[in-house]
């Protein structure tokens, strides 16, 4: 199914782009609005070419786009692929959240069923 394939490839690109801390920092910077390449490079102790490389990866993944402005070379955040990736992760998170909430209740139960010994716990295993 072509659509699914595209989706999978997109997801790969998104996750790969997000796997680098510098790129994540760039994205969160862009979350507040458009920023020029110059300004983007400022907080990082990195050369502009190095930053440009990261920007290329982000652009390829469709996470950011350039804005026609020869002077400033602005970049802006593209939300859609991020939303897609987040949505899928959210699915997964909900599934496990249910299980872990059950674990919370089990833990409370186990703690209660232990003889209250205010001093300290001893004894491990059987």
């Amino acid at each position: 199914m072509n659509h699914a394939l595209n989706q999978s490839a997109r997801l790969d690109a998104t996750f790969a782009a997000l796997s680098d801390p510098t790129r994540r920092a760039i994205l969160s910077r862009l979350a507040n609005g458009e920023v020029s390449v110059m300004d983007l490079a400022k907080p990082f102790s990195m050369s502009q070419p190095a930053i440009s490389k990261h920007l290329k990866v982000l652009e390829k993944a469709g996470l950011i786009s350039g804005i026609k402005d020869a002077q400033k070379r602005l970049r802006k955040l593209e939300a859609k692929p991020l939303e897609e990736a987040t949505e899928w992760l959210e699915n997964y998170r909900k599934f496990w959240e249910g299980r872990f909430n059950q674990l919370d209740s089990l833990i409370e139960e186990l703690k209660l069923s232990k003889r209250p010994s205010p001093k300290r716990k001893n004894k491990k295993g059987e």
Partner: protein
Amino acid sequence: MSSFVGTLKVEAKGDREIVMTREFNADKDLVFDCFTKPELIKRWLYGPDGWSLDVCTVDLKVGGKYRYVWKYLKDGSTMGAGGTYKEISGPDRLVQTESFDEAWYPGEALLTTTFVEKSGKTFVTINIQYETKEGRDTVVKSPMEGGASQSYNRLETLLDTLILEGKK
């Protein structure tokens, strides 16, 4: 009511890993037990609602195997999964393989679970590394039923029961 201690964080890492982090309101010995003792695993890993964990065997040693079989109560269909323990440093770290009988993701996964205790709470990190990025993507994209709200309700009931029991 001190119910949910932790929010679950799920992140994709690199192109074939998923990392889950969650804190629990107990020391790591207890949390580790909940992850490794069948009689305890059965009491929380059964969800979402409508499912039960019927079979749960654990041979907790390096090279030992574990096996889970879930049953869907509505139609009696089952889903089995299991793997082998690669490393056991209780109660701090657990490394195991995971694969499902009906492989719904390609290859097997390697689960590394760490338990870190800080002032009476235990921070659990589960790193799941899939053999292929397709495997990871399949998992992330699967429309899993949340069932979180159901377990909130279940917890509430349970807590009420426990509070009543405690008053005896």
